[in-house]
């Protein structure tokens, strides 16, 4: 058996995983935290994306918006990952074979890469374009990709229950 699958089965059958899965309230509460955390994680980054697309907050420099948004997004990411990991732990064996869960992780990784590339390249020279109402095409492409990828994460996440 592949080592990853073995790991998932170990988590699933563990005492903690079983307790979470069979709990009356714990799983539901963690799941609710996970779902509501999309506002903090994705909703805030969407505001930055819409700014770069020139749709909102045009009078405010992109880096000002980013400086305010990024800590919120990272907080949301922390909450999402922690709650998500617990949800995964409870259902690990099933998640291993769930195509929607796999798709969600891939989209999540792509969203991260998109952000990383942006911060290492075009955002380095932000002072040149941050005051423009509409950002340069590379920033807009990043913003559009970000919106698409994070929407995909939400959609794939919801679809997990249907597989």
């Amino acid at each position, binding site marked *: 058996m592949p080592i990853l699958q073995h790991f998932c089965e170990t988590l699933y059958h563990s005492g903690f995983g079983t307790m979470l899965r069979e709990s009356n309230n714990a799983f*539901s509460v963690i*799941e*609710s935290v996970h*779902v*509501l955390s*999309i*506002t*903090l994680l*994705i*909703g*805030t*980054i*969407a*505001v930055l994306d*819409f700014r770069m697309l020139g*749709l*909102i*907050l*045009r*009078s*405010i420099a992109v880096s*000002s*918006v980013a400086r*305010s*948004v990024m800590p*919120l997004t990272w907080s949301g990411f922390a909450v999402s990952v922690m709650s998500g990991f617990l949800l995964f732990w409870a259902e690990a064996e099933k998640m291993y074979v769930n195509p929607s869960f796999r798709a969600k992780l891939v989209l999540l990784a792509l969203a991260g890469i998109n952000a990383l590339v942006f911060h290492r390249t075009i955002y380095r020279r932000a002072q040149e374009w941050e005051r423009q109402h509409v950002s340069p095409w590379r920033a807009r492409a990043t913003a559009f990709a970000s919106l698409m990828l*994070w*929407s995909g994460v*939400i*959609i794939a996440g*919801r*679809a997990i229950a*249907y597989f």
Partner: protein
Amino acid sequence: MGLHGSFMALAHSPLGHAMQTSRWAFAVVEMVHLLGLAVLGGSVLIVDLRLLGVILKGESAITISRELSRLLIGSLLVMVLSGIALLSEEAGKCYYSPAFRWKMALLAAAVIFYFTLHRQAILCTRRGTLKLWPRIAALVSLLLWLGVGVAGRAIGLL
């Protein structure tokens, strides 16, 4: 037609039938509802955190609120429309669900608050000195919207 009658009318409407018979309609509409939630939540967070003086302190709260109002109202509209579609699929269950009734009450409160006292509080910031009322309004707003979200989750769980 009473309230229960209205719920039943929605369930028996073409929308209701479409939602109840289709295998994927509910899932898709629910996804749209979640996408709306993300954007609505993000807008509310940015506006209210500014009112609390946590972010974008150098920028006008009035400007930020105005600039995000279209996004906020637009995403709210998406949530209401998708919400009606979701309701049409399980109108009976929702009618008798305490969580659903709480959600609708909190939603009404949040929306009314947004267009009245919250708006007043934002305009207060123009004078720059009185910081307490905008902060209280921001906290009330955040709590109301959080309540809507939690109650919404409770519909499916209770």
